[in-house]
């Protein structure tokens, strides 16, 4: 047993407590770093020293490891939960915007303009001879056609925008996958040298979290510290390699076209965007059905009537659906509007009356409801979809927040705790230093005794 045994023991303790303070400092410094996992120093006693076969004496402390406090099971649950939240929240946001396109309730909406057109027909039925009533019909009808076309245009540009966003999500996921592949290599190299590369692991977990938020990717952790990431049956990252997602969207099946099998997207922002596009397309299909039924029905009745010029067979609307509905060239002259059911009777408003009756007449093409009711049902459906998506996103948010709280309670940095640790290590350091000075005075006494002046 060396005479400096005690001093060496003290130095080991000083080093260990300094590391403790360093780690505390690292934790405090990263209190605001997103995705940072708190570290903890694990101390262990150094091997004992045998003075004689019956007596062993302790030799102090060493830092065994610096632990990264993370619950991987919880982490995976959070990623899955966040992916679902990302899907629902994206859908909520987009549906809210789509709802805004309808301008309901309001004067600019299709509902008000349908009412205005039927009122104009009614006014024409009362005053079939009046040019003012005819102008009123033209005005109301072209305002309605404008509203149809502009809503259709807005929906289509919204659809294009959503498609672009979906492409951007796929692009981002592919870039992250490539980064993750490179990170896998670095982590494997670092792990093989023995030390846990904490900051690399934090970075890896952040990438995985973002990937599941984007496309609902799932991770599988290997023993060597690398991670395999996959979406449905498609492997996105394995070891150092990444395999990009294809970008051909199959909205109806919520999938990406791929060979041999399509990749189904179950959650994440990408799925939310696909859901939004599917909703948008179905609203637009209803709008087109409404417009084409209006065109067909109004024309069928109008063409049987007589204009003030006593000619018949005039068409009222031109076009096939909401994208291209306009007034027909036939009624460019308002006197050609066929209000009368017989010729030579400017006071006859029979056809105008039949047109006005379309307001509430059930339509086979619309499943037995009237034009106005069909549109109201569409608005009800949109409103309901927004409300449901809002409620679902909010409840999923609570679930994710709860999981995040659990994670934070394991992995998050608490300044109070770090302050206490700092005091603890500081005091321990002081004690170890005291110990060294005690051994020092012991040695001094001994030296004076051995070699007196």
């Amino acid at each position: 047993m060396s005479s400096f045994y005690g001093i060496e023991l003290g130095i080991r303790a000083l080093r260990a407590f300094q590391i403790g303070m360093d780690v505390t400092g690292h934790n405090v410094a990263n209190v605001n770093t997103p995705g940072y996992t708190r570290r903890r120093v694990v101390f262990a006693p150094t091997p004992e020293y045998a003075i004689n076969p019956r007596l062993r004496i302790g030799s102090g402390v060493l830092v065994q490891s610096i632990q990264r406090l993370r619950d991987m099971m919880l982490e995976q649950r959070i990623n899955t939960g966040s992916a679902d939240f990302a899907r629902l929240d994206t859908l909520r946001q987009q549906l809210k915007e789509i709802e805004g396109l309808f301008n309901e309730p309001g004067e600019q909406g299709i509902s008000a303009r349908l009412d205005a057109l039927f009122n104009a027909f009614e006014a024409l039925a009362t005053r079939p001879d009046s040019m003012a009533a005819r102008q009123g019909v033209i005005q109301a009808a072209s305002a309605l056609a404008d509203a149809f076309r502009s809503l259709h245009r807005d929906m289509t540009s919204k659809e294009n925008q959503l498609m672009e966003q979906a492409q951007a999500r796929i692009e981002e996921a592919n870039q992250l996958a490539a980064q993750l592949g490179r990170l896998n290599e670095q982590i494997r190299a670092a792990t093989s040298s023995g030390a846990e590369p904490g900051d690399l692991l934090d970075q890896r977990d952040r990438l995985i979290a973002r990937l599941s938020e984007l496309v609902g990717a799932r991770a599988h952790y290997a023993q060597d510290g690398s991670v395999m990431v996959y979406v449905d049956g498609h492997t996105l990252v394995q070891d150092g390699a990444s395999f990009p997602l294809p970008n051909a969207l199959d909205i109806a099946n919520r999938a990406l076209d791929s060979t041999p099998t399509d990749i189904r997207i179950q959650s994440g922002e990408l799925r939310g965007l696909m859901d939004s596009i599917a909703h948008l397309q179905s609203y637009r299909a209803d709008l087109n059905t409404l417009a084409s039924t209006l065109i067909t029905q109004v024309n069928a009745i109008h063409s049987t009537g007589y204009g003030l010029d006593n000619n018949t067979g005039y068409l009222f609307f031109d076009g096939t659906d909401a994208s291209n509905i306009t007034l027909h060239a036939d009624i460019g002259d308002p006197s050609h509007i066929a209000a009368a059911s017989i010729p030579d009777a400017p006071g006859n408003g029979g056809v105008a009356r039949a047109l006005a009756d379309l307001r509430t007449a059930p339509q086979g093409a619309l499943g037995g409801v009237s034009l106005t009711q069909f549109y109201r049902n569409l608005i009800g459906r949109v409103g309901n979809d927004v409300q449901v998506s809002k409620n679902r996103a909010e409840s999923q948010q609570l679930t994710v927040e709860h999981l995040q709280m659990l994670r934070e309670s394991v992995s998050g940095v608490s300044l109070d705790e770090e302050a206490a640790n700092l005091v603890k290590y500081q005091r321990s350091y002081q004690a170890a230093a005291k110990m060294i000075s005690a051994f020092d005075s012991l040695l001094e006494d001994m030296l004076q005794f051995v070699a007196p002046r």
Partner: protein
Amino acid sequence: MRISTDWQFRQMERAIGRATDRLSLWQRRVSTGRRIEQPSDDPVGSVHALAIRQSLQQIEQYGHNIREARLFLQATEQAFANIGTLLNETRQIVSQGANDTLDADARDALIQQIRHLKERLMQLGNQRTDGERYLFSGQKLTTQPFTLSGGVLTYGGDGSPLLVNVAPDRAITMNFTGAARIADLYNKLTEIENHLLTGDSDVLSRIDLRDIEAFQSEFNRYRGEMGVRLRELENYETLYAARKEQLQGSLAEIEEIDLTEAISQLRQQELSYQAALQVFTRVQAINLFDFLRGG
């Protein structure tokens, strides 16, 4: 449970965020007075509101229709009132003409009078409302209904009804469809004129007087019919006034807020917002590092 510092701050941030959201929602509701701004605020309510709006629009249009029909019917009724006066005068002329002791001058005066009445009747028959539509030409509206040829008045209208919708299942005829009878009356006046010319006091007293009396009661009946229709219009107008009020009430109930409740909600949200802010400042002040300072 271990609470991390970052989580603590995030929780408070979120609490303040939620309080702000709710506060601004009620601020908006109180300032706009509306609880539905988008269909998703109340999908069922907003569909109902659209349906009510449609009914209100329809009622508004029926209101226009009723006013239109009333103008036409009133003009027609007035025409019958004038014809009634004209028939009273005719009756007097006929009974004076039936007197054998009438001298030639007096007879000439009666003939002048009857000619004048014929002219007035033709004017009444060809009367137009608002200067364009003939009252009595039916759906031929812009064709002059009565023309004179060879001293005989003929009806050129079609006697078809001008219909006005006043309810989904009720159309009211706003014109008089038996206008051909005005021509018959005119031609009767021509007969009387001829009988006065020939001094045929016997026919005047026996036949013409009776005929005119028959015309009087017939045209009186027509005037009555117009009155009946005018009263029906009035009934619809009263009905719609009540219905409109009721619908507007339901619409307000669906779309608008109860101001008293909204203001108390707003107060409450202001309080919880302030509370969230205070919690934030309190919690921020508590930190072990502060206590250890100088230690």
